[in-house]
């Protein structure tokens, strides 16, 4: 097997004396989707912020392997290098699309900004990619010059995904990508994300409290409780035959329609 895309080792993050993540290690391989599930306050969002370079952990390391085989230690690297990585190789999908979009400018500019940030300076080409990506996330091209304020919640989330994927990243972090949307919109969005991730051979880390999201998107999952990983394994295996008491509780507490 290839070298892991992302190698997390011994990651610990304390807020003062409160531990949020405790000694977490895992590896993510190219093209693999891993889900991190757990209840509110279990440390999953803190973990995501640390491994995506937005927050420095108290201890531990995150190593990223570039397409050319070079390895960057995320927190030993300069901030310039880290931000460059976030622009070029990574994407981050926020739970609330308003955090991930620039609400003051049009949808086209939102997609275009990612391209302009990596040096694209040809209006016609930027516009064409923006149109292409709008159609790939099932938004009518005629809405390209509209403000994201005029979009529905589901459309905003799809726009945010387009903005993240237009630069063809290798790794995408998603924080509750379907949170706050109604179920029918959720299903469509999940379908879309699954298709895009498979077609683009993206690796992804998906944080969610929704086991259905984990089952649909991920091949592997990690269950967190109180800042620790209590169970990890293939998604189907963990959901069908949960070993840890907490995971059993989690699986049993899913409402059956």
């Amino acid at each position: 097997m290839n070298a892991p895309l992302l190698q997390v080792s011994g990651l610990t993050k304390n807020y003062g004396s409160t531990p949020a993540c405790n000694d977490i290690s895992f590896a993510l391989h190219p093209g693999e989707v891993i889900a991190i599930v757990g209840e509110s306050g279990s440390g999953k969002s803190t973990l995501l912020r640390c491994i995506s370079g937005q927050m420095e952990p108290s201890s531990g390391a995150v190593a990223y392997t570039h397409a050319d085989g070079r390895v960057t230690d995320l927190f030993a690297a300069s901030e310039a290098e880290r931000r460059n990585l976030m622009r070029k190789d990574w994407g981050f999908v926020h739970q609330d699309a308003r955090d991930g979009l620039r609400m003051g400018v049009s949808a086209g500019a939102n997609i275009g900004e990612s391209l302009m940030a990596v040096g694209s300076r040809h209006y016609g080409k930027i516009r064409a990619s923006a149109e292409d990506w709008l159609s790939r996330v099932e938004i009518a091209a005629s809405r390209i010059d509209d403000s994201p304020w005029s979009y529905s919640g589901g459309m905003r989330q799809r726009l945010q995904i387009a903005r993240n994927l237009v630069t063809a990243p290798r790794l995408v972090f998603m924080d509750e990508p379907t949170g706050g949307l109604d179920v029918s919109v959720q299903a469509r969005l999940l379908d879309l994300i699954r298709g895009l991730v498979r077609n683009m051979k993206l690796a992804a880390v998906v944080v969610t409290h929704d086991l259905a999201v984990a089952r649909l998107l991920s091949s592997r999952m990690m269950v967190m409780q109180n800042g620790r990983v209590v169970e990890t394994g293939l998604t189907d295996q963990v959901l069908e035959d949960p070993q840890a008491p907490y995971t059993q509780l989690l699986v049993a507490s899913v409402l059956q329609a």
Partner: protein
Amino acid sequence: MSGPAYNFAYLNEQTKKMVRRAILKAVAIPGYQVPFASRELPMPYGWGTGGVQVTAAILTPDDTLKVIDQGADDTTNAVSIRSFFSKVAGVETTEDTDSASIIQTRHRIPETPLREDQILVYQVPIPEPLRFLEPRETETRKMHALEEYGIMHVKLYEDIAQHGEIATSYAYPAKVNGRYVFDPSPIPKFDNPKLDNSPALQLFGAGREKRIYAVPPYTAVKSLDFEDHPFSVSGWDKPCAICGSTTSYLDEVVIDDQGGRMFVCSDTDYCKKRRPA
């Protein structure tokens, strides 16, 4: 009480020294916004307090000062600042671009080409070109430091998407010396080409925002654009109604209540000299 009521050029020597230090740093790093301890002045923010402090710091008794506002020498702001300096510094003032050694300006660069022995001082309201899209100062500083300027093009993209062309017509962002993107104050983009490779030293002072920046003489200033929408300036169909100039920046003036209009040079000194005697 004896002696003059004010120190030369109003500001005390310590303050002028502080402003000069900021200016030196600004000249050393073209386009970089240097923070400085902006002082209270006997005029409100928005009247050019940044420009006045820069002018006060570089003024010598031998200087000849010209002040323009929207290109004109005879508007309230220009007249007030000129009389301010003739009162507190006793320097000679002029309306003639050629005989001025320091020109403080708001909104225009004179039509008459500037020389190496002249300094142009701009009054700047908002020095940060990235402010339109990024309200956080900590973030914009980081963006300048790391040369993350992709966001500047988002504004230009929006212009083309909404108006079919780059509709930004003043405060048009430009890159200085291939490094810092800066806001050349609210001059019309018509004047942007004059920033490039100018023989005169250009100093920018923002009083309320407490920033000074500079374009040293003979420094490259490139206006931002797209490959397929290159930077261009618009012209006028008609020449100046007074002097007949076809190359200067024209103001539209309403002349009656019947919808009558005329277009005249905004640079009053230039227009006056060209007028047939």
